[in-house]
């Protein structure tokens, strides 16, 4: 860091050093991703000799074949259904609970909040076997809800925390005045808190969506039939079937991460805010 001292040198070397480092790191991050996307356009033979470069002939077969298969779309649809269930339920349940923690004074409030925050301390995997038994006994094994409900439960701690921190910024005077005028807590929540909370709803919603979209462990344990598999499970199956047809696998990987990348660049502000600020406040 300290080796280059800009102020005392005739030539300013610092920009070269800064951009050198940044471009090198960007290369390390991007080259595997770009090679993956390009790999889908190559033949297996070409992948063996030249995995880096541009394809000699742009071969659209792998991509075409996958896009034409029902399997790819079924996987995406499954992921989408599970993610939407998780997001809707998380937003409803977590915002209500967080409202109580932020705005209503009651005995045991602190204790209950730390009860939820306990969930932030350990991985979901610790209780995965009893969870499997529970879902089985409830008859939810191999259903979308069987995956969505535990996902909501495991995400509650973080979501409640994010919501509560936001709701706390709504001035108390507003609530007091509304209560004075005979407005109920529930009506206040519905017509004042929620409309003011669009940014945090978006942030929590997107973070929950991405987490569910990428989740592997829970669906792996809780789903049996291939027709219900979300894409992370489907892609592992696919890889098992096409072991060294790397061009097919790479095309498949590219097509499955494409939605994530598009959503990321479209909603980067919310994603970065959610994934990091939740952390900071924790």
């Amino acid at each position: 860091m300290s080796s280059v001292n800009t102020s005392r040198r005739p030539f300013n070397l610092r920009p070269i050093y800064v951009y050198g480092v940044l471009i090198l790191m960007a290369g390390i991050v991007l080259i595997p991703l770009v090679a993956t996307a390009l790999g889908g356009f190559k033949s297996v033979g070409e992948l063996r000799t030249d995995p880096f470069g541009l394809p000699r002939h742009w071969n659209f077969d792998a991509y075409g074949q996958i896009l034409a298969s029902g399997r790819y779309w079924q996987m995406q649809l499954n992921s989408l259904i599970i993610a939407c269930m998780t997001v809707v339920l998380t937003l409803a349940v977590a915002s209500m609970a967080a409202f109580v923690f932020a705005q209503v004074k009651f005995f045991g409030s602190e204790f209950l909040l730390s009860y939820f925050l306990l969930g932030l301390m350990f991985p979901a995997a610790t209780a995965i076997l009893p969870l499997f038994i529970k879902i089985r006994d409830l008859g939810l094994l191999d259903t979308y809800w069987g995956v969505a409900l535990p996902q909501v439960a495991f995400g509650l701690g973080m979501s409640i925390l994010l919501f509560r921190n936001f709701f706390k910024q709504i001035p108390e005077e507003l609530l007091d005045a509304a209560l004075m005028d005979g407005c109920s807590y529930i009506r206040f929540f519905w017509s004042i808190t929620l409309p003011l909370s669009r940014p945090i709803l978006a942030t929590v919603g997107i973070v929950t969506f991405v987490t569910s979209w990428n989740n592997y462990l829970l669906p792996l344990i809780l789903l049996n039939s291939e027709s219900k598999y979300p894409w992370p499970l489907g892609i592992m199956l696919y890889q098992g079937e096409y072991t060294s047809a790397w061009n097919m696998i790479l095309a498949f990987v590219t097509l499955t991460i494409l939605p994530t990348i598009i959503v990321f660049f479209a909603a980067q502000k919310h994603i970065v805010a959610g994934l990091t600020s939740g952390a900071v406040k924790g």
Partner: protein
Amino acid sequence: MAFSDAVPKTIKQGTLGGRSLSARQGRIGSNWTVLVLFLPPALLLFTLFVVIPILQAGWYSFFDWNGYGRPDHFVGMRNYLLLLKQHAFRTALTNNVLIIVVSLVVQLPLALWLATLLAQRIRGAVAFRMIFFLPYVLAEIAAGMIWRFVYDGDYGLVASLAHGLGFQSVYLLADRNLAMYAIIVVIVWKYFGFHMMLYIAGLQSIDRSYYEAAEIDGATRGQMFRRITLPLLKPTIVLTVFFSVIGSMQLFDLIMPMTRGGPSDSTQTMVTYLYSYGITRMRIGFGSAVGVTLFLICVIFAFGYKKAFMRNE
């Protein structure tokens, strides 16, 4: 935080301030409706799918049970003793520790270094931040798959690098002694951007005037970094260390597409171990013992760490 901007200014001024004193006290009697309607859904879901399973894991871990019928074969501490004796479990623990050490020694300093470069107003900073954050957003499964290709001895980028330099093909992920290091590279690749973002947020909240004053006093960049940046960034650093440790304990998805814990258990982590030895063999009792061990490690660490470093938060 930035969210506060979203609350309209007029509301912030608190134009209604004067009347607030007794409003809430007067309404305490009606609190219960909102409590009864708003809390139970979250409480129920959380208790049913998070808390009870963990308590049950504690109970099941004393039984030898395959998940059917009732657990009635009580074995006491045998599952735990079995666990401690197993070589694969010790490898998993060692690997988790190794991941934590590399995170602390390589990943976090790298993230901080890049953050100091990108927290300044330079052209393209936002684009670079997004690029570095991108791997964090990708699903672990996809990232693992991509790196399985990168490391593939016949097709991969590493193979063609090796050929280009005149070496034999290397099969990194099939090599018992190298596979874990190959995976750690991927871990750094995947998560450094997340920590970098936290550091950037931390750096941007440091008052510029400290640096201006230091510059006037003739401080060097190194001195400013040690005397101003590091101390003021301490809360963020404390936090990123916490996330590195807890994150390492959860590592599973990334490893599955690359090695599934192999070759010969050399890349097991706590969770892949739990998966290979508890879940796939439906040994509920033994798997629960692994889960409980993992839980205890995480919770003891979390409480101890919070007590030691995060007292003010």
